[in-house]
């Protein structure tokens, strides 16, 4: 079963259906670019309940903190521990480096495909 496409939230997170009952969550390339050099990532813990549209993690650049809003409601089943020591990996590749994975997803935020998200970013600028 092939992977589906990433879907994007207005708050610049992405959600990817991994096809095995879990979903990966990350931040968009636009978000990492806007944030600048990332130096700290604060992730949820496995077992935490994520609620669509609610803050669940945060990422920090040298100068600023930014909340990460969960794009879906579900249970955190994995976190990307690599990011705890190398937050700069998000700057290098925001799409390949997920923040955490969710299972038992019930509800999703309003999400856009890549084309709609890119249009949204353009209009927001």
């Amino acid at each position: 079963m092939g992977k589906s496409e990433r879907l994007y939230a207005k708050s610049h997170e992405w959600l990817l259906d991994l096809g095995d009952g879990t979903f990966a969550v990350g931040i968009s390339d636009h978000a990492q670019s806007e944030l600048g050099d990332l130096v700290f990532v604060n992730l949820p813990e496995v077992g935490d309940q994520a609620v669509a549209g609610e803050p669940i993690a945060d990422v920090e650049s040298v100068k600023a903190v930014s909340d990460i809003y969960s794009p879906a409601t579900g249970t955190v089943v994995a976190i990307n521990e690599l990011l705890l020591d190398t937050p700069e990996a998000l700057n290098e590749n925001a799409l390949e480096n997920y923040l955490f994975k969710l299972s038992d997803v019930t509800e999703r935020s309003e999400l856009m495909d890549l084309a709609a998200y890119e249009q949204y970013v353009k209009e927001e600028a």
Partner: protein
Amino acid sequence: MELKTPLYDRHVAAGGKMVPFGGYLLPVQYPTGVIAEHMAVRQNAGLFDVSHMGELLLSGPDALENLNRIFTNDFTNLKDGRVRYTPLCNHQGGVVDDMIVCRFGPDEYYLVVNAANRHKDVAFITEHLTGDVTLTDLSDSTALLALQGPKALDILKAVTDEQHIPMKYYSFKRDVEVAGVNCLLSQTGYTGELGWELYCDPAEVGKLWDALLEAGADYGLLPCGLGARDTLRLEAGMPLYGHEMTDSISPLEAGLDFAVKLKKPDFIGKAALESVHSFNRRRVGLKMTGRGIARENCAVFKDGERVGVTTSGSMMPYLGYAVAMALLDADCTEVGTALEVDVRGRRVACEIVPLPFYTREQE
């Protein structure tokens, strides 16, 4: 509505991320990013557009008397060509602004003030002037660049006659020709590195900027934004107005005792500074030992009791760990004390460490 410095178009063309600061649109960073810009200043050199800063000229036979009566530092023995740092206090002992003062001559002093405080400073100083003295705001006819870092001297030598470069810290020379531009050249800065600041005509600053970047290309010079300016000054333990100093924080609490001369005759704020209340709090340096980065306005706790608040905080690119400065109860400022900071609802461990966090190696 924000003003643009004469270099605005160059910043935009270079990909600078423009943000409002002190009434001006300035680059917070270029595409290289804050970390690369910070490291360039520590290891090579960086060039900053700080044209937003305010420049005031105090002139007249009574200039010195006014300086000593209005400001906290003592300017009596300041020589021509030398620079002195001073806070300016209100009558309650809080800080109106902090600035550097260059002595042009016995009757002429050049004050360099924070952009956001410029109009407040002019009003406050003017209100307190007495005798034969005039304060002139030269900010709109002055552009300012800061060239900072261990390679700054090499770069400067490539565009100006070496004999005109002021080689002492906190000294300056006027009418120095740099890349064909008439400059006031001072050995000053806000990064903790060797460096110079160049004051010139706004109409000529573009030429100066281009020439310095070109001369610096072989030395690893990067144009740097406000982001790196802030992390560099924090790493070097330097206070920033609006953070470590405000209208309600005294310069003594901010640890600026060296620039407050309580032994000289009366000056604005002296009585308040001499009262016991001016020592209730003290600025300290904190090193984050737990996982997290304290920013400004985070509450600080000792054994569960609130003992103060952070005034600045960030990850430090050169040191490789997060630090903060905080204003703590005066009885809780011993180096080595273990504390906790509330970072958005999480208590993160930290420890009081000596200031500055970073000191450059002197040759």
